[in-house]
């Protein structure tokens, strides 16, 4: 079975490709973006297409639903009639799959399982990075607010943090929100 992975994220595509080779020994080709998708499909002749949802190229694939002289077996979106959750999982993970018409669901499912798992793993990695980044910037704001309080009130760092924390508790807000308002106010007053 030939698989074409169309993904703008080269790193992710490489991971998906490796996983597919490891799992089923499939023939896998990778394309970073499908500017000329129709030409690519003509040369690659894939049985299964794994497409990154962030690429606008899906609409081009939608056209291939109709059989033509050069493509007697149309490409259809993979929908497992017995399992709607698969579609949910795929879209959630940011991936869609197309297959040549007539390919049985049982042959396609393992391919899609692998793709969904890899896309998901990438997504959670990205989210972790985002979280780390926002935690870092939160810490910066809190440090600045502590500094402002320490100077204004002549208190220690520990006392400054304690005030931030207590105010946050009283106002039912996050420490970083209180810190941000102090930084903003200091900017306006200073």
């Amino acid at each position, binding site marked *: 079975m030939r698989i074409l992975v169309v993904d703008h994220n080269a790193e992710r595509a490489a991971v998906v490709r490796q996983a597919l080779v490891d799992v089923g020994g499939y023939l896998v080709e990778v394309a970073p973006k499908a*500017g*000329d998708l*129709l030409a690519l499909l003509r040369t690659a002749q894939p049985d299964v297409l794994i497409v990154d*949802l*962030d*690429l*606008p*190229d*899906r*609409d*081009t*694939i*939608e*056209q291939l*639903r*109709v059989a033509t002289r050069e493509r007697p077996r149309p490409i259809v*979106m993979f*929908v497992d009639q017995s399992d709607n959750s698969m*579609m*949910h999982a795929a*879209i*959630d993970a940011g991936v*869609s799959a197309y297959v040549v018409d007539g390919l049985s669901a049982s042959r396609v499912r393992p391919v899609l399982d692998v793709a969904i798992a890899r896309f998901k793993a990438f997504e959670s990695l990205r989210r972790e990075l985002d979280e780390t980044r926002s935690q870092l910037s939160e810490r910066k704001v809190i440090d600045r607010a502590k500094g402002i309080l320490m100077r204004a009130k002549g208190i220690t760092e520990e006392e400054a943090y304690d005030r931030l924390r207590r105010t946050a508790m009283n106002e039912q807000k996050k420490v970083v929100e209180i810190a941000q308002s102090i930084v903003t106010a200091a900017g306006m007053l200073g």
Partner: protein
Amino acid sequence: MNGDLTPVRAGFIPLIDAAALIVAADRGFAAEEGLRLELVREVSWANVRDRLMLGQFDAAHMLAPLAIAATLGSDNAKVEMTAPLALGLNGNAVVVSAALHAQIAAVATGDPTDPAVSGAALAQVIAARRKQDREPLVLGMVFPFSSHNYQLRLWMAAAGIDPDRDVRLVVLPPPYMADALAKGQLDAFCVGAPWASVAVSEGTGRILHFGVDLVARCPEKVLAFRSDWAAANLRTMQRLVRACTRAAAWCAVPEHRGELARLLASPQRLGVAPETIAQILESRLVVAPDGSTRAHGGFFILDGCAALRPDPRHALWLYAQMVRWRQVEHSAAAAQAAAKVYRPDMFDAALTVHDGVVQDGVGAFSEPAFQADDLDAYLSAVGAAPIA
């Protein structure tokens, strides 16, 4: 305050006719209706369709023919859609490469904005190419179920060109069109605003036709809901219809154009230069790289009930195009189902509920309220016998 707002998620494609939805979200019209409208910018119509079908979106800016195709099950899955609001009319343009424009101009006799004239010229160009044994012309459009597809086909068929045999019609995402034209992968394309203007401003193509040359009042995008969702969330749907209707009225005020252009231009919305958007709002578009312009008041119609109130004749016209071009099999049941996607009654209900005066469309002084959608219930409520 924010806690009291009802969250609604809607998908959109960066196009000028997403304006009502974008303004509803960004200028407070949705919040005034008690909605927290979250807009999600999408990159493909397939994504919009799938996310609406799976419930990841509550509403969507959607190609009207796609909403009909989904309802009929002629697209992917069969999921009934409801369109209580049209998001304007027109807005497309046919863009051709410099080379094709020169070839058409060389043989055209008459007014080049007359599609009969340009179509006859195109037929001659195609005949000449065939004689020289050259590859057929390649024309781009945005989705199989799109007015763009039907406008191009209408134009060519009227000139005796078979759009399935004499040319190659391909689907390309709008942001790729200009590039494909520059690389010679495309000879022409039909696309919604502002993407024709983007291609012209990049110097890769020129506008041969405004969509309005081909179809005077062309149905385009609708505000689409899954029918089951709309039934279960009637009030929320009505609020969104009202918010978008008010937003469209705001867009139509000439003094708001500058702000509207800036709003739409933002990277999270259309991500296109405000000057490019402004010329569309002014209905005067640069049509060629030399800067020449053409004005047409009907280039894009967003304002007024006539453009927003879904007209079932539009749904039927789109359905007829699908039948004509063999995308669906014609049957009386299918035609009826297609017409029913467009819901002027829901549009009316959403707006009159708000006025609070004539909720039933009549406003009789005594109970019960009239029920246009359930005559029997009304008749038995007033003591008359329903049909046996």
